[in-house]
């Protein structure tokens, strides 16, 4: 349905929009037109759209109230395609672009006629704060059903259901001074610091920098205020030491002056980032700013007055009215009533009159307001009603009249007969709250300032506030404050500020404001029509009164009980009013009721922008060995081990398969296992941690961090070592080789490499600095290829000059030589129980050596295998894997590895003392054993729990669990490693494993060594 493109509320001139550029957009299915420079909100108002949404709880029609971040109502769902959906966009902060598509977030079947509003109207009184807690309790079984229906009403906008086409990133920034807010104070401050040569970042959340100068009635040096802003911005843009960030919201102030700035780079251009050179740009960018000093020039938010039906469309903030007229050339109505507690708001009436529309009256709560603005209003012939306020708005879908009455502020009551003034717009102003959110993020509690009737920020060291942000609302004073605070910031950095001359501003006479928050009504608050405090969450003055009546006296209780301030606007409009109402109900002052704590974000930020580029393929590093490409090309399936991608197994095409069907994992692993036991297999073991240890005290150091002895390990020899924490629990293991008397090469588990290196450094740097030893990671320097199996020697002999004679190059020896022409260190250690050579070469040559092994390996049946086969083979030998067979509660003795414990070493090595604590001395601790299923076809589940009595009632006492379990092609049987209470004394006994499917497996406790218990195979 195309609608007339005229914009009934658009003025023919004025504002900062570009009337020559027309932009079409769609709201709730209707087509409209606006101009470049509009926000969605100004364009909607220009087109006379009153109802932009329905309220959350009562489904009441709602219109636009504000012109900025504080807007509670105008939340829309943006996006023409599924992937481009953005929920809960504030229309006041969304720049209009051509083709924009938006919908209201609530309202069914539509926002004009919402069925739920009936529920709100009729049921509203049955939904006081906390009503959930008082009902839906019977019968207990029904709660999940009740909840299902409650959830139907949940939420504002909706999540997209497709993945985001856009990308986001982070930019790390560092500066001397970060100025937040480019209004009068911020611009003055930035200019001062910039001219002084400091590294300055100036960030401002709006489409255009200038803040209140952009809609100010004031003249600076006899020029419109905006002209001065333009001049300053031009100068700043030309300076190398200044970074200007428009459309950038400071959303979180973190410790030590770390501030996150969210820059919306393309949201004003379209619903997804446009393509540049075929590359989609970055939709938004998070600047992670580390600042030396921070200056908050964040301005103030106007407070609305709280009166009956103050939520009907047509109720606006006075300042928003001025902004729409002066900045966007839009008058949001025809007949205005202004209700105010201060002089400042009079400007809205003056702007309204000058736009050629009618001001019915200014209603001023003060008995005798005096000042230049009042005189100006009188000069325009505007009726001013003093000592009074709008006590109630009339109208349902748009304001039709204002009821105005004399009020007694101290007695909180209406004292005169109400007069009804026909109008379509009510603007209100209850004063100005400094925007203290960011200062509050630092943990500093704001303090109440009675003079300005607002909270002013408390500031931690290095944070400064200037202008309205600390209650200095006068233009000239605010700019001067900006200069002064910039100078103060620079001084704190040890820099000096250059003088900046500020423009002349005509002095104004202004009278004091009065304290007015909730406006009294003829009826008591609980009986009067609803007086809204938090529009987004439908929190009313009556709700707050009820909360205090029920004993919720702390402001935090009031907020939580009523949900005040928990909306997406985080109470920017409502919180102070709410506190004032709570204070009134409790007979306290506002500061006695408490302060309010704000948390990041200042305004909501997409998950994508916070996550940045660390998504999808870049979510977490993938670590590759030098042989990774070969593994990929040879069809490996990979296992994630830490950040490494390790080949898990190498499925091959099934012999005789017509359609290239590959082996199952079980088939591949069985084949790989047989190859190792019968012929020769090869494993990429490069991921094992490798630490080069040098120094005359290296041996002593090893003796202290390992459980076993090291003083006699000869050059050319290797030894297995077990590492504990000082609580006696096993934490890592590996083989360490003696390269020279003062030189060792330690290997660690793949996952433990970083932790072990840090562990060694920790003990060296903190506890034993007198030991002369150094540790250097060489994990990446060496590639490690393990060839293992009875044919390993024959294979290696073909391409090495090393003497492989079994009597000279013995088990647990290492040798140097060439393999395939590449210098290599070869270690005769074994994790499979077979004859094994671990070939280490400089990683850049690894691919050549690996391929050379294959070119010679075919005749020996050389088979690549992965981690799964490695696990099976080592388990057959009873070799543990730390982290699988141990879980941080297992001692070397629990593992039956007393042979690896040097009880009589002179130094009380790490972990030793803990082994004699009463609990670690228990004989019924869980101990590592082997399990042989009674039915050889059964492969026990890893993690299966072991019981002695499977007939015991639930809870059934458990005696341990299966840590590793596989099918062994060698044994043609399932087998397992397990920890069992007192297991080492229970060899031969039967245990039971009751499974989820009701089966109870039986298994015999056996030695954990299943294959070649005498260890002969590695010596063939």
């Amino acid at each position, binding site marked *: 349905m195309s609608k007339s493109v005229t914009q009934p509320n658009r003025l023919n001139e004025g504002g900062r929009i570009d009337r020559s550029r027309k932009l079409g957009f769609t709201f709730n299915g209707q087509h409209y037109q606006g101009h470049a420079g509009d926000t969605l909100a100004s364009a909607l108002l220009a087109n006379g759209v009153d109802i932009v949404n329905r309220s959350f709880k009562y489904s009441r029609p709602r219109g636009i109230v504000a012109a900025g971040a504080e807007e509670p109502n105008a939340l829309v769902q943006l996006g023409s395609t599924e992937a481009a959906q953005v929920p809960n966009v504030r229309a006041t902060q969304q720049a209009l672009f051509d083709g924009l598509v938006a919908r209201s977030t609530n309202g069914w079947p539509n926002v004009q006629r919402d069925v739920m509003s009936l529920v709100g109207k009729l049921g509203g009184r049955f939904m006081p704060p906390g009503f959930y807690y*008082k009902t839906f309790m*019977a019968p207990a079984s029904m709660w*999940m059903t009740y909840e299902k229906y409650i959830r139907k009403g949940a939420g504002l906008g909706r999540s997209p259901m497709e993945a985001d086409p856009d990308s986001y990133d982070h930019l790390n920034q560092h500066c001397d001074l970060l100025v937040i807010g480019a209004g009068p104070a911020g611009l003055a401050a930035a200019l001062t610091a910039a001219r002084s040569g400091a590294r300055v970042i100036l960030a401002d959340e709006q489409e255009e920098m200038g803040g209140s100068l952009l809609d100010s009635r004031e003249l600076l040096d006899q020029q419109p205020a905006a002209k001065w802003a333009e001049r300053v911005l031009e100068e700043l843009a030309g300076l190398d030491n200044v970074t200007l960030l428009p459309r950038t919201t400071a959303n979180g102030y973190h410790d030590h002056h770390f501030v996150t700035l969210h820059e919306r780079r393309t949201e004003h251009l379209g619903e997804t980032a446009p393509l540049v050179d075929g590359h989609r740009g970055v939709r938004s960018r998070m600047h992670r700013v580390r600042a030396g000093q921070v200056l908050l020039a964040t301005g103030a938010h106007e407070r609305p007055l709280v009166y009956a039906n103050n939520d009907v469309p047509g109720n606006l903030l006075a300042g928003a009215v001025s902004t729409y007229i002066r900045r966007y050339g839009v008058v949001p109505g025809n007949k205005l009533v202004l209700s105010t507690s201060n002089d400042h708001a009079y400007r809205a009436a003056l702007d309204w009159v000058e736009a050629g529309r009618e001001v019915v009256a200014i209603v001023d709560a003060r008995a005798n307001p005096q000042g230049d603005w009042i005189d100006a209003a009188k000069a325009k012939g505007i009726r001013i009603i003093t000592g009074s306020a709008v006590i109630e708005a009339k109208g349902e879908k748009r304001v039709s009249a204002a009821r105005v009455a004399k009020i007694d502020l101290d007695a909180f009551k209406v004292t005169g007969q109400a007069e009804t003034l026909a109008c379509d717009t009510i603007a209100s102003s209850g004063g100005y709250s400094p925007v203290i959110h960011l200062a509050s993020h630092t943990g500093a509690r704001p303090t109440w300032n009675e003079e300005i009737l607002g909270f002013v920020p408390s500031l931690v060291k290095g944070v400064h506030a200037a202008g309205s942000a600390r209650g200095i609302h006068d233009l000239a004073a605010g700019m001067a404050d900006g200069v002064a605070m910039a100078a103060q910031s620079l001084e704190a950095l040890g820099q000096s500020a250059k003088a900046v001359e500020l423009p002349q501003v005509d002095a104004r006479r202004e009278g004091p404001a009065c304290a007015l928050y909730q406006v009294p009504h003829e009826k008591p608050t609980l009986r009067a029509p609803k007086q809204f405090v938090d529009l987004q969450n439908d929190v009313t003055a009556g709700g707050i009164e*009820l909360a205090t009546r029920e004993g919720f006296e702390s402001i935090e209780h009031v907020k939580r009980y009523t949900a005040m301030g928990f909306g997406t606007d985080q109470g920017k409009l409502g919180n102070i009013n709410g506190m004032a109402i709570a204070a009134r109900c409790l007979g306290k002052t506002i500061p006695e009721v408490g302060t309010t704590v704000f948390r990041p974000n200042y305004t909501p930020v997409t998950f994508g922008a916070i996550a940045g580029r660390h*998504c999808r393929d870049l979510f*977490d590093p993938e670590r590759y060995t030098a042989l990774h490409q070969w593994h990929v090309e040879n069809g490996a399936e990979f296992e994630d081990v830490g950040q490494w991608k390790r080949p898990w197994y190498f499925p091959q095409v099934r012999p005789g398969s017509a359609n290239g069907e590959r082996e199952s994992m079980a088939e591949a692993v069985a084949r790989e296992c047989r190859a190792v036991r019968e012929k020769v297999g090869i494993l990429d073991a490069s991921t094992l941690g490798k630490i080069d240890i040098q120094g005359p005290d290296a041996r002593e150091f090893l003796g202290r961090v390992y459980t076993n002895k090291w003083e006699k390990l000869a050059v050319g020899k290797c030894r297995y070592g077990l590492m504990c924490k000082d609580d006696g629990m096993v934490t890592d293991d590996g083989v360490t080789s003696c390269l020279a008397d003062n030189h060792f090469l330690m290997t660690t588990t793949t996952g433990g490499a970083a932790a072990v290196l840090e562990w060694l450094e920790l003990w060296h740097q903190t506890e034993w600095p007198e030991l002369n030893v150094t540790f250097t990671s060489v994990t990446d320097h060496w590639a490690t290829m393990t060839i293992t199996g009875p044919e390993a020697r024959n294979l290696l002999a073909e391409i090495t000059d090393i003497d492989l004679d079994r009597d000279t190059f013995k088990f647990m020896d290492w040798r140097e030589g060439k393999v395939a022409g590449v210098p290599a260190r070869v270690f005769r250690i074994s994790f499979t129980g077979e004859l094994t050579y671990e070939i280490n070469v400089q990683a850049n040559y690894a691919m050549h050596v690996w391929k050379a092994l294959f070119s010679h390996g075919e005749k020996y049946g050389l088979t690549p295998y992965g981690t799964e086969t490695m696990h099976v083979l080592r388990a057959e030998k009873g070799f543990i894997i730390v982290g699988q067979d141990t879980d941080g509660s297992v001692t070397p003795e629990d593992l039956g590895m007393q042979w690896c414990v040097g009880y009589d070493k002179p130094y009380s090595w790490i972990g030793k003392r803990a082994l004699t604590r009463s609990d670690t001395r228990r004989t019924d601790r869980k101990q590592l054993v082997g399990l042989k299923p009674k039915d050889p076809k059964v492969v026990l589940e890893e993690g299966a729990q072991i019981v002695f009595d499977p007939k015991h009632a639930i*809870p059934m006492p*458990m005696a341990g669990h299966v840590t590793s379990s596989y099918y062994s092609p060698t044994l043609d049987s399932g087998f397992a490693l397990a920890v069992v209470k007192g297991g080492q004394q229970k060899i031969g006994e039967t245990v039971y494993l009751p499974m989820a499917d009701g089966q109870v497996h039986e298994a015999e406790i056996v030695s954990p060594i299943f294959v070649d218990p005498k260890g002969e195979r590695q010596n063939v």
Partner: protein
Amino acid sequence: MQRYSGFGLAKHALSHHENWERQWRNPTPKKQYDVIIVGGGGHGLATAYYLAKEHGIKNVAVVEKGWLGGGNTARNTTIVRSNYLWDEAAALYEHAMKLWEGLSQDLNYNVMFSQRGVMNLGHTLQDMRDIQRRVNANRLNGIDGEVLTPEQIQEIVPIMDCSKNARYPILGASWQPRAGVARHDAVAWGFARAADALGVDLLQNTEVTGFKIRDGRVYGVHTNRGDIEAKTVGCVAAGNSGVLAKMAGFRLPLESHPLQALVSEPLKPVLDTVVMSNHVHGYISQTDKGDLVIGAGIDGYNGYGQRGSYPTIEHTLQAIVEMFPIFSRVRMNRQWGGIVDTCPDACPILSATPVKGLFFNCGWGTGGFKATPGSGHVFAWTLAKNQAHPLAAPFSIDRFHTGALVDEHGAAGVAH
């Protein structure tokens, strides 16, 4: 106590809600009580309630330095589950779970305990071994749970990326159907109202400044509102346990760390269960108001500032976007932090102390909320009988000397 019901609500509506009674009194401290509970959070209030209800000890004060339920009760992500690994922990949390299941009716306060199921994802083979081990143990301990395949997970949570292309593909999950979430504030208020009705004095804005200790025995507390006497004092003050212990002259095996959480803007419901991932480190559920509630990791340093470091938030949202790519354009509304007292074995301390009559209930780490009723119930028994409840016995301070730790890092590793 005014009974709450749907009918009552309607009656009050007709009288413009002008006749609701206070949910609890605001009493003046008495000189002496039988028992003082230090800390008016969920656990403390539950302790007071069960002391009065189960043990007839009604002359009880709950001393709270701020507002009731203002500590971690107000700051957690409200997950309730009992699928712990070790028998001792599982028994304690399952005890709590059973109390949760009747709590709204018992308190006559709807704590909105929603048994929508909790899923713990496995992304590595070792994750899956740990999951199988835990689920098997749970089953034999009488706790519901099963292991899900990626296909089953996808069916329950269609919006999650269960594809094999993920950096850490989802290999499976543990699933506890009886687990879920509850409305955190309501839990504190419900216990407060019920305890107050039984005669317990809830003393807000009352800060303990020291203990009255003579000859190794406690006789009461010093507060900013004067001394209050009692021969039994139970400290249930998460985030302050170390400070209180120091006042009493001993140390605890605790470190207090910041733990952060965040919520999105309200969205129409898209996630009807609770999803947790240890490995990529994030967990998420959606409230009945529509907010996605997301738990971040614990910060490694000690901190009482109720805020943590920003990179922790970044890592969490990276994990969430990794699991739920569709949430990239959803916006984070607010973040906050709690103070969690962590024990070396990720299990709590429910224990007598070197000071006679002084007991501590602390060290719940990142997961105390789920234990609230169970913790209170067991601790009340312990205080009333001056002897560890059988379920509390394994959680005495002694274990850090004997070595009999109950290492739940596997089950509790992800903060929640």
